[in-house]
């Protein structure tokens, strides 16, 4: 057994896990504010990454500019999606809304393939140094950037919900829409805002992953990986989503290490989070931090 390898995997796990955490957070944001389970969360990453890639390659924009334009676009994208597709569905059965988000997922996957092709495309190089050494471990520069961005987003979320007017309005709306409205909060606006922020933040994660692995339809898979993370943390807990994401990231990499060193089954990396998902649902169905739904009949 090689300890260095294990450490490296743990670090990778934390970095990837932080990204899962970011995506999970934006998933929970939508769920909390508008009670929609968004199966198209992964496509936010996909669309964001492709748009940014396109701006950088076809328009030759510098990275920072392309990135900012992407964020602006995704904010608008989220608002339009909510207003045009989801607002008319308010009051419809949960299953209808879920079917629609699955439909959106399929639609945007196909659209991206149609527009940008089916092959993975690398981002133009962004950093002069590909790798840096941190505490004796090799780390890709983008990974460090990714960790920094994830942390910044998490702090931003925390600030937004604790101190800003709109964050407060969102928390109020998540708790009780009628009461929030009676206090002057515009519930439709809160819904649109939650989709906008969710799409924008997910796109950040999409761009980061795109820079590391290249842009391809594999990005959609992050939307699926989000489920073990949010189920672990609790569907309606932002903190839980972050922790769930980190745990899933580390778990994946531990599983990979276990696989490589001991089991040699060859697919644990992909599957381990979903085993965890099933276990959690059996033991603690509301997750670590979720609100237990008590129904009185």
């Amino acid at each position, binding site marked *: 057994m090689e300890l260095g390898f294990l450490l490296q995997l743990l670090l990778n796990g934390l970095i990837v896990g932080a990204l899962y955490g970011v995506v999970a957070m934006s998933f929970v944001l939508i769920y909390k504010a508008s009670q929609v389970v968004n199966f198209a969360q992964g496509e936010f990453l996909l669309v964001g990454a492709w748009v940014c890639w396109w701006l950088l390659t076809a328009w030759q924009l510098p990275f920072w500019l392309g990135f900012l334009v992407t964020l602006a676009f995704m904010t608008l994208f989220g608002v339009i999606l909510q207003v045009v597709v989801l607002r008319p569905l308010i009051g419809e059965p949960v299953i209808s809304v879920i079917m629609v988000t699955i439909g959106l997922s399929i639609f945007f996957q196909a659209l991206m393939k149609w527009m940008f092709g089916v092959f993975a495309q690398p981002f133009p190089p962004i950093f002069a140094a590909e790798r840096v050494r941190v505490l004796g471990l090799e780390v890709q520069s983008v990974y460090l950037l990714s960790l920094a961005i994830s942390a910044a987003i998490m702090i931003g979320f925390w600030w937004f919900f604790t101190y800003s007017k709109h964050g407060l309005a969102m928390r109020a709306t998540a*708790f009780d829409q009628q009461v929030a409205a009676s206090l*002057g909060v515009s*519930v439709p606006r809160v819904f649109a805002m939650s989709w906008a922020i969710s799409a924008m933040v997910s796109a950040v994660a999409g761009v980061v992953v795109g820079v590391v692995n290249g842009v391809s339809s594999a990005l959609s898979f992050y939307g699926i990986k989000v489920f073990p993370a949010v189920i672990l943390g609790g569907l309606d807990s932002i903190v839980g989503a972050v922790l769930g994401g980190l745990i899933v990231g580390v778990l994946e990499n531990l599983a990979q290490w276990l696989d490589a060193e001991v089991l040699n089954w060859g697919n644990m990396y992909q599957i381990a989070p979903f085993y965890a998902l099933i276990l959690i649902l059996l033991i603690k169905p509301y997750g670590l931090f979720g609100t237990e739904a008590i129904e009185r009949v």
Partner: protein
Amino acid sequence: MDPAAPILEAERVSLRFGGVRALTDVSFAVRRGEVFSIIGPNGAGKTSMVNCISGRYRPTGGRIRFEGRDITRVPTRRRAALGIGRTFQNLALFGHMTVLDNIMVGRHHLLRSGFLRGMVYWLGGAQQEEIAHRREVEEIIDFLEIQHVRKAIAGQLPYGLRKRVELARAVALRPKLILLDEPMAGMNLEEKEDMARYILDLNEEWGMTVLMIEHDMGVVMDISHRVMVLDFGRKIAEGPPEAVLADEHVKRAYLGEADEAVSEPEEAVA
């Protein structure tokens, strides 16, 4: 604006849920600056009426005017911005949030700083604005004597305090008209007296018009300028408390045959 004009007018308001008539042709007017109470037996339509005024329900017939403006089709949050605040019959605090945050939500429509300005909090005037709002919120907190629990999680407070926090949140809107749905329900005598004092102060010193639903006849008779009685969704009486109490219809429909309910106010008022 004509100060003598009623602040709120309901004109033949009806509300139906399928075959159930919750309200039938209810008309009344609340004058600016008064304490107006709605009483009636359970299921008489009192809360339905308040919900029609606050915008939670849309009447199936009739009109509601606020300061002369037809608000029948105006959404709830706009009514809040126009100056209609409310509390709920079954406490509706944001349970996970602190008392202070609960009250700050009530300031929502008064906070001007938008999303982008909020983002650059430290650059824009958001901080000054927040300070001004905090000052006013503190004033409300002082008034309702909830200083000691301002950082507490609202859902963990005892019932009487939660009622006060909910009132504080509605007051934070700075409404011209405040709708109180059973502000004294479940309170002991001492708490009721405190609440009655708060309501009177809001009315007299803060200049808010109060529309209140309350079951405690003592309190109703004591602090209301005028009372309206609903029974099975219809208005059966309206007027000064004494006149309404003396009304034959009211005695029969609401207070029953026994005289004890009528004499109850005397002891509760003291």
